């Protein structure tokens, strides 16, 4: 089976560098693309392109056409927390939320996150504990093409997969920002989230590539 080619964007932030260049994550990335090199990069060489948490949306916006073309060519674009895809892609709703860094100090406290669909393959890699650290916002209103994978107990979407809007490619977006905290050497749950999310992305992409190859075989 063809292993997907994974590229990740380095915006030059210290936490990008620490997350991308060091283990345990470095082994997941085949290519590192510096943000300002994207316009002269042939993205079609990649199957997955990850926009690392807090990459400046002001500088992603002029690249929106190129990023949409990447998805329409079959690629998976992953917009991580605080990249604000609603600001540079159409039809994404977003409502910011006040971040509470201290909710867990209360005995028995629960941030209230859950995996939206226990039958979804992502749940073989991620549990609610892995995504539970804090909230920055929710995708609201949620577009019908956005299948929620992580949400709050009130149904506020924190991570979605969209396999329709940019078919045959896909968009995965989350409001959670694990690369930032992992790369700043803070908050162990964020490391666990990435150690689950990255294998899920690669596994699901492997399946997508295989099924496209099967479709392409003449009857």
């Amino acid at each position, binding site marked *: 089976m063809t292993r997907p080619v994974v590229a990740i964007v*380095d*915006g*030059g*932030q*210290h*936490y*990008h*560098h*620490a997350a991308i260049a060091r283990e345990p994550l470095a082994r997941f990335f085949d290519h590192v693309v*510096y*943000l*300002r090199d994207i316009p002269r990069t042939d993205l079609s060489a990649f199957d997955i392109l990850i926009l690392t948490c*807090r990459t*400046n*949306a*002001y*500088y992603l916006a002029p690249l929106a056409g190129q990023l949409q073309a990447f998805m329409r060519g079959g690629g998976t674009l992953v917009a991580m927390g*605080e990249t*604000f895809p609603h*600001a540079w892609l159409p039809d994404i709703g977003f409502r910011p939320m006040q971040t509470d*860094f*201290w909710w867990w*100090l209360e005995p028995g406290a629960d941030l209230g996150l859950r995996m939206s669909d226990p039958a979804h393959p992502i749940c073989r890699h991620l549990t609610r504990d892995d995504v539970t650290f804090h909230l920055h916002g929710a995708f609201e209103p949620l577009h019908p093409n956005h299948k929620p994978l992580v949400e709050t107990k009130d149904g506020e979407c924190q991570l979605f997969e969209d396999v329709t809007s940019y078919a045959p490619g896909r968009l995965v977006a989350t409001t959670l920002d694990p690369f930032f905290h992992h790369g*700043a*050497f*803070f908050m162990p749950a964020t490391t666990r989230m990435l150690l689950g999310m990255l294998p899920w992305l690669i596994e699901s992409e492997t399946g997508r590539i295989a099924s496209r190859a099967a479709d392409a075989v003449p009857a």
Partner: protein
Amino acid sequence: MTRGKFLFVQNAWGDPPPALAMIRGHRFDVFQQYEIDRLDWSEYDAVYLSMSVDQIHLVEIAPKIEAYLDGGGALVVNGHVARPFLPELRRYEPMPRRGLAELRLRRENEHPMFEGVSAETLTLRRGVAGFYGRGSNPPPEGALVIHSVGPDRVAVDWLWERPGGGRIFAHAGVELLAVLMLEGPEQGLPALQRIFDWLAATSGLPAREAA
């Protein structure tokens, strides 16, 4: 009070930290990072680099930063140094994770910027240690270390008066405009105000007409 003029270098979508608008008596020019190449920095008492700056870009414009410092400027560096963009900077060294008790901050040298705020206060932010600093951007030999952390007393905050002019104040943690405000503006604003008041009052720029 000396009125200061500062350049705030942002590399994030949205508004700058709300604290910026609450600091009194100074002017802050807020620019997204890639705009700063074309600005004349010589008017600024200090250039404040937010924690999310693109350090690859800073490496590219290092000659501009050094020329500004040579002329008496001040650079406030927040966060971890991943790509040493000046000869005075060395790569951030995280502390091994050894437990909360070892995240205690220590005041190594008193400094007017931190008058009235104790290292104990900074250690715990609403009861939680670690926000302020968990490792070190190792300082140049002879730098004034203001705060250290952990049993090895590695430098979290340091101030370096460059022999060739200008100074660098480095804070290896969540950025000052955010971390000092975590317990609310009543505690955070006076601390921030003192930092910028001091930077303005001791400005190394040639004297200019009062605004």
